[in-house]
């Protein structure tokens, strides 16, 4: 279950850590959403964030990707604090892929253009190379025949898979998945989760906010239970899901089980 230490860790932080978050806090007005988050994710590790709605899972992911400015704490990649003012957030974001609950595909672009936008405009890749890469990625995730479609002609599951491919096309070091199956019809969840499983098998480092407990148990190396803006408990899924030490975690899991989500 460990992120097997890979050679050449150049960071002074720890062996092959992709990202390290230290005492991160974030408020929206008076509402404290994150209250001192500490989390380090190693290369090839899959970390699942679980917790009730409003516990701060999505905000944490958006902070890591610098979509939300943070109030206190540090976010380190390669030993450098990426949350400092003056850091080129565009350079940071191209290293971190994020997939949103609502897909957020660009409706005026074909699937191919959605996927090649980042590589062409950000990585300055020539069009034919970007399109070759994109076509290959789309084929890998069963979307080869959707290449020239517009997003509105795809099912929710297909749209979300395209959104994943769009993020992957930037060859990110880290993928953030923000409740990517929550907006899907139940029968479409499996196709999206199987894509994520494939990514994990391929060694992608991921932080996944999810309500799919069964999926979290299968895929995570580590599960973090968030409660009121703190990581209340973390550990391997076997421990968190069967013998949680915190009463709040137990309560949450009991509710999830009662709702038939596990």
């Amino acid at each position: 279950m460990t992120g097997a230490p890979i050679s050449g860790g150049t960071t002074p932080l720890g062996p092959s850590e992709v990202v390290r978050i230290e005492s991160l806090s974030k408020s929206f007005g008076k509402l404290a959403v994150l209250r001192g988050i500490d989390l380090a994710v190693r290369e090839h590790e899959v970390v699942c964030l679980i917790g009730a709605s409003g516990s701060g899972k999505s905000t944490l992911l958006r902070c890591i990707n610098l979509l939300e400015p943070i109030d206190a704490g540090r976010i380190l990649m390669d030993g450098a604090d990426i949350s400092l003012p003056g850091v080129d957030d565009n350079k940071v974001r191209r290293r971190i892929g994020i997939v949103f609950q609502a897909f957020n595909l660009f409706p005026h672009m074909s699937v191919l253009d959605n996927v090649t936008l980042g590589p062409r405009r950000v990585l300055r890749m020539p069009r034919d190379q970007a399109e070759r890469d994109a076509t290959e990625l789309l084929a890998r995730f069963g979307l080869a025949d959707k290449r020239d479609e517009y997003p509105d002609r795809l099912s929710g599951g297909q749209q979300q898979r395209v959104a994943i491919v769009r993020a992957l096309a930037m060859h990110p070091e880290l993928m953030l998945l923000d409740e990517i199956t929550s907006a899907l019809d139940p029968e479409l969840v499996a196709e999206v989760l199987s894509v994520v499983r494939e990514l994990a098998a391929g060694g992608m480092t991921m932080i996944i906010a999810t309500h799919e407990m069964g999926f979290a148990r299968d895929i995570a190396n580590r599960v973090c239970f968030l409660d009121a803006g703190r990581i209340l408990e973390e550990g391997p899924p076997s421990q968190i899901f069967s013998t949680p030490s915190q009463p709040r975690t137990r309560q949450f899991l009991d509710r999830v089980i009662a709702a038939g989500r596990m």
Partner: protein
Amino acid sequence: MTPPSGPPVQPAAINGRRRRDGGRSTLIALVSTVVFFSLVGWVIVSSSSWPQVQQDFFDGGVFWRSLPEIVGALITNIQLFLIAEVLVLALGLLLAVLRSLPGPVFFPVRLLAIAWADVFRGLPSILIIYLLGFGVSALGIPGLPNDPFFWAVVSLTLVYTAYVSEVYRAGIESIHPSQAAAARSLGLTRAQALRHVVIPQAVRRVIPPLLNDFIGLQKDSVLVSLIGVVEAFRTANIQQEALFNYTPYVALGAVFLVMTLPLTRLTDYLVARDRRRYLAGAR
């Protein structure tokens, strides 16, 4: 399920019903139209002063005699509004983008953009045409042309850029922030996200109000006759004074309708086609 991208799609059921009732509806519409306009026509024609009005405004001979010259002079209006429209399209977008720039550094730029929009929407067009056409050219600043046509283009551009920038701004603001966030998350800069993701969607959405403003601009092109540009309205005016008959104005009106109606229809068609492409395909 999909990101919001416009008004809701028409349910197929409505189309179905419309088709079934089509024959009867057409008949009712036809009868009602004929009755309505016959009635209006009868009321007008039966008025006691109609023969005088007909002679002053609807003289067929005068109409056809004045038409060629008016159409010839319309070339000036067309040149005027085509140049202004190109400038307005570009400057309006620029103004809208400038106004959306974030941060305290750009405060003066935002202020300028807001002032432009406020002043030129707040003043009557005719006042601006007068002030620029007579006032600024009277200053005789070296390098600035004295040609009324030049000042006509400048005036209409200033006024309509103010309107069109507001249209663009509404369009930009109507694109959900999650679209920009998705673009930024790929590493695109603010400007790239605007250029490749937000503006293309915004422009598509504002084509109808944009075209409305252009129809307004085309009509307002006659206002510049007041600073000495000899265009269609001035030509009709000259003929009216020469012939003691108002029919040239009616001819001018007919010419304007012929010019603007196809444009309106074309816009509606383009919008409908676009909407089909982006919305109707879902599911």
